[in-house]
């Protein structure tokens, strides 16, 4: 389908002369990486750097894809806020990328994606009439519609209730299979379920944390998942002390 590249980032980020972080990380091709760490450490900044968005600082370093092609136009993202346009229907929200580029939207594909995220029959509804979970499903369909090999997720499930969140994690793992994914999260349970690679970010740098071996999305009740989640939580607590 698409050749998802490995992504390598190394460098230092400086905001108004003060170093925010110095980091080195590698996102394996076609795999899920979760990035955890205290608030304000710069997790979202890393995500914005890979996306090529404004960060309010200067990054001295490099961001490279394994195929040596630029990342421009190959990365899409999904945030905690669904960023749906309330005046557009669900279907029109999904094709917004094509509209914004001035291309002709492929409504047929959008409809099949809606079906895939379990929203068929809701295509003409406006976002304010949907539940939080349905809105994030729509945002996920919009992300899929962009069909980019690299997907960056900034706590997209954190505002959902526990059951809906677990459903969304499974759906995302399924539909984003084969893409290079970076998930920024505060939730050890989420990292234990979804990561091929777990990264913990501190002011000193980024450390790799051992992740379970099973394929994702992992069973919530599996001992391996639970022990990873517990140990990770313990580690994060020690960091904040």
């Amino acid at each position, binding site marked *: 389908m698409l050749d998802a590249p490995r992504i390598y980032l190394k460098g230092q980020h400086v905001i108004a002369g003060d170093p925010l972080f110095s980091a080195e990380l590698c996102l394996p091709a076609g795999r899920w990486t979760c990035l955890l760490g205290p608030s304000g450490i710069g997790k979202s900044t890393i995500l914005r750097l890979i*996306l090529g968005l404004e960060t309010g600082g200067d990054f001295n370093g490099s961001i490279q894809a394994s195929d040596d092609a630029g990342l421009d136009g190959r990365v*899409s993202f999904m945030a905690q806020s669904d960023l749906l*346009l*309330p*005046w557009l229907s669900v279907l029109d929200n999904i094709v*917004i*990328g094509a509209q*914004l580029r001035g291309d002709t939207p492929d409504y047929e594909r959008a409809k099949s994606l809606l079906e895939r995220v379990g929203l068929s029959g809701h295509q003409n509804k406006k976002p*304010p*009439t949907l539940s939080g979970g349905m809105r994030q499903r729509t945002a996920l369909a919009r992300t899929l519609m962009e069909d980019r090999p690299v997907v960056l997720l900034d706590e997209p499930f954190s505002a959902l209730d526990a059951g809906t969140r677990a459903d969304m994690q499974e759906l995302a793992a399924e539909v984003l299979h084969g893409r290079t994914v970076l998930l920024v999260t505060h939730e050890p349970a989420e990292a234990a379920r979804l990561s091929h690679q777990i990264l913990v970010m501190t002011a000193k740098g980024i450390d790799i944390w051992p992740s379970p071996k099973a394929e994702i999305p992992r069973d919530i009740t599996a001992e391996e998942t639970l022990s990873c989640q517990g140990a990770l939580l313990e580690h994060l607590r020690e960091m904040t002390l």
Partner: protein
Amino acid sequence: MRRRDILFALLLGLGIWQALVWITGAPHFILPSPWRVAQAAYKSRVIILDNAWITALEVLLGLLLGSLLGVATAVQLTLFKTAERLMLPILVFTQAVPVFALAPLLTLWFGYGIGSKVVMAVLIIYFPVTSAFHDGLSQTSQGYRDLGASMGATRFQFLRYVQIPNALPSLGTGLRLAAVYAPIGAVIGEWVGASKGLGYLMLLANGRAKTDLMFAALIVLACLTVLLHIAIRKLALRLTKYAEGR
């Protein structure tokens, strides 16, 4: 507001008016009674309606042209940052010139017909509409901007699909202000020099001590303005509802 409340307020207003007439004992050419004004209104209904139509036309044309001009300016300021830097100070400075002071000049330039009044109304509402809509266009959330940037949005398409719909409630606010100002602009224009319109009729009636006719014209003007407010308020509400996806 409920209908019963409005009716009650109306009766109360008429009551106070009549009471004032009785208490002060003012002659009818100083303060005519409501009944006298109603009689004058009925007697001069043709002339009042003729002139009301002219004023309404001036106000509506002014509102339409001024809003279109304001919307176009706001869009252009948003699309071109250089224009924004150069034009915003000029726009703000022109607001320091009282538009009423321009009325004689406008009459000189655009004549005694409705042209000068329409221009007056346009000038007076242009800034509130431009400023409100431009504010709305500038207040697109960072999230939407990030989404647009990550999707490779062109500036024009982003404006069309995100910024403009998002700014419609602000436009509604600007239009509501415009609906307040536009009749003022038209009437002032008529006072300075006109041969038609409610403002002209009021001056004429005043000059001939026909105070009852003046009151009648004033009430018709107020009714027109209220109708305009109601219509624009409904429009503004629709814009907001649309933008909120309701």
